[in-house]
């Protein structure tokens, strides 16, 4: 009897002991594991610091020969201006520099730059070569770690010294922000002169900083909505000629222009596809307008929408797979997205007021638009699915956003109201750093080119 009772108890007691010892072992294991985890250095979290422009020192580029002094100073000024206008850099006034002339071939005296709180330093030299070309060298230094971050040299014709300065600016920008630059790019816009009743509108082009303005048309006819080709030196725009407004193609280098397609009725709001092979635009048919795409080589035209509404302002996504456009099919003008081959469109703007002139960012992350409502015109951005809408600037009249090649900056035109005319402005897609772009006269309808290099 006692045996019978005792035997079945044995395994139970053993197992309980095993459990206890097992738990103890487990405790030791986890305890030691925790100990091992605690071995590393203590982590101190520094969360969400403020965005701040980087203090950068750009002493004048050294002249390789005495004749290069002027161009050295000029290049330095262009770089300083570019970086300052970007809002991401705070160039330090040259008057504060302890060291004025830098030997580019040796490591700088970093202590001198640390003292004036510079975190980055640009040194450079311009030298005219015996063959007449200009050699530009630059080095970008990290003052605190005493390391060279970038260094390049370029050869060019002396008259292109501004482009060299823009290219160097892009190098600095890219190395210090981690993003592509946009300084070596151009802007085409509509230059407006004369009194308001008889305003002369000419197609003009300039560097993104407002320099080197060139006029592409004479101003006899009204021009609107110029757009850069992403791959060729061509512009497409709408011009009011003798008859209906038509979409034209303009070659910047040769000055030649041609009508895109030969359609009855008016064609307007053209834009290139990302590969530059097609032009998408609106064609008016009766009281409606629909979207069409034309292949520039084969001249074949495809209809993309067929609605009893006004569909206009189409813009491709950077991968060319989708199109955003403006349509009043739901009543007020709103932004829609559909496949590049047409088909069902999805409305993405749902705010109060009406939305127009959508533009897809070259980065693909945002669509910029003009929003009208509450007696104001605003420039805003939203994600391609319609979320994250954000207004960057509002006022009497802001319109026509266009993205910089890196998708970080928008240019648009603003009319202050009253007697004045429109002028061009840039704003960061965060809504900060609004800057006026210098133009000779009034200017509207800007379109940013892709990077030239």
């Amino acid at each position, binding site marked *: 009897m006692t045996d019978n009772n005792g035997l079945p108890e044995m395994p139970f007691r053993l197992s309980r002991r095993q459990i206890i010892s097992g738990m103890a072992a487990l405790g030791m294991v986890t305890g030691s594991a925790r100990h091992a985890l605690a071995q590393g250095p203590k982590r*101190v979290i520094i969360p969400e610091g403020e*965005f701040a422009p980087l203090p950068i020192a750009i002493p004048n580029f050294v002249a390789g020969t005495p004749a290069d002094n002027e161009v050295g100073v000029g290049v330095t000024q262009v770089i300083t201006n570019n970086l300052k206008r970007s809002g991401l850099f705070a160039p330090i006034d040259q008057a504060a520099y302890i060291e004025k002339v830098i030997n580019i071939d040796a490591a700088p005296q970093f202590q001198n730059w640390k003292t004036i709180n510079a975190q980055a330093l640009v040194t450079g030299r311009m030298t005219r070569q015996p063959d007449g070309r200009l050699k530009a060298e630059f080095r970008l230094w990290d003052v605190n770690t005493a390391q060279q971050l970038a260094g390049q040299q370029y050869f060019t014709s002396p008259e292109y010294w501004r482009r060299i300065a823009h290219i160097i600016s892009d190098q600095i920008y890219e190395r210090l922000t981690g993003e592509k630059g946009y300084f070596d790019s151009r802007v085409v816009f509509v230059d407006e002169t004369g009194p308001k009743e008889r305003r002369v509108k000419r197609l003009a082009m300039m560097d993104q900083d407002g320099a080197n303005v060139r006029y592409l048309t004479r101003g006899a006819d009204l021009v609107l909505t110029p757009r850069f080709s992403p791959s060729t030196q061509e512009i497409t725009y709408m011009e009011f000629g003798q008859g209906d407004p038509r979409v034209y193609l303009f070659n910047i280098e040769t000055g030649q222009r041609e009508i895109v397609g030969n359609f009855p009725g008016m064609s307007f709001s053209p834009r290139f596809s990302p590969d530059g092979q097609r032009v998408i635009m609106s064609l008016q048919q009766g009281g409606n307008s629909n979207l069409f795409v034309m292949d520039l080589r084969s001249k074949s035209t495809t209809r993309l929408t067929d609605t009893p509404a006004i569909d206009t302002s189409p813009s491709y996504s950077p991968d060319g797979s989708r199109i955003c456009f403006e349509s009043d099919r739901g009543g007020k003008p709103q932004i829609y997205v559909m496949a590049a081959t047409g088909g069902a469109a999805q409305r993405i703007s749902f705010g109060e007021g009406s939305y127009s002139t959508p533009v897809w960012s070259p980065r693909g992350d945002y669509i910029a638009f003009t929003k009208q409502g509450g007696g104001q015109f605003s420039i805003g951005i939203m994600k391609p699915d319609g979320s994250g809408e954000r207004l960057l600037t509002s006022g009497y009249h802001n319109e026509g956003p266009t993205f910089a090649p890196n998708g970080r900056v928008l240019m648009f035109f603003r009319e202050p109201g009253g007697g004045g005319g429109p002028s061009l402005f840039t704003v960061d897609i965060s809504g900060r750093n609004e800057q006026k772009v210098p133009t000779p006269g009034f200017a509207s309808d800007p379109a940013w080119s892709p990077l030239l290099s």
Partner: protein
Amino acid sequence: MNVKVDKTLVASVALHVLVLGWGLVSFSSKAFDLMPEESVPVDVISSDQLARVMAGMKTGQKAPTPLVEKVAEAKPVEDAVGKITEKAPVVTETTPPPAPKVEEKPVEKKPDPPKPVAEAKPKEEPKPVEKKPDPKVDPIAEAIKKEEKKPKPPVQAAKPPEPVKPKPERAFDQSKIAALLDKRDPSRQAVTGDTLNSNAALGLAKGKAADNSATWGALFQAQVERCWKKPYGGIEAQKSEAAFAIKLKRDGTLEGMPVPEGTPATPYLRVYQESALRAIIECQPYNLPAAYFDEWKYFAPVFTERKT
């Protein structure tokens, strides 16, 4: 139409209505209000960590308020820990008679006799007697002999004669139980005072927190942020993080270059890491509390955009 009404049913319905009605009125009269309270950050820690945090410090300051365990008239006790007091011998009939003094004597004498052969002979055999027989022996041999002799005494001493122990007879007198009780006053007395205070004299409850990084970490953060020019980075910036391992000297300067953890995967992450590195270098020396030097001499600042 002759409907017979059950009185009990009526009474039951009436009572229910009354009770429910009262309940509706009395319970619904006041909404359940939650007083707004200040939120307090809470961390889950293990009992082990708690023990470390709560441990007092040997070098700690005297607590400004004395330990108080009971609310009563203030009567501070010098040493809260119980003292060992002499125990008065309890005399009962069964107590063994006091041990004879003889018992202890041999123990006291032990060191004296070099060679106690018997208990009665210690004084009759002084050392000089032993030395006389061989005075001509060279000093070295003598020293050796001495060395040999020296360890001996303790061995010999270990053999004291067995004291005659009277065998205690175990007897139990029920009527004397009370006498066995310890009638001393309790030596451990509760410390009384006006307000309860559970902090012991040395150190505070939070005296030796294992982690004071909240204190000096915030100081470090405030200082390094002044130099941090965070690059602006659009959407992808929201996931950025850069960690370093840094060693600081006592004066708050870096002992060496901060060591970044891992290599950045994207150009923006690289720029982000570099900006943080610049900030760490530029903002030295760091002014951190010297008391926690052991903690901040080696730590890992983590610059992050990730929202926790």
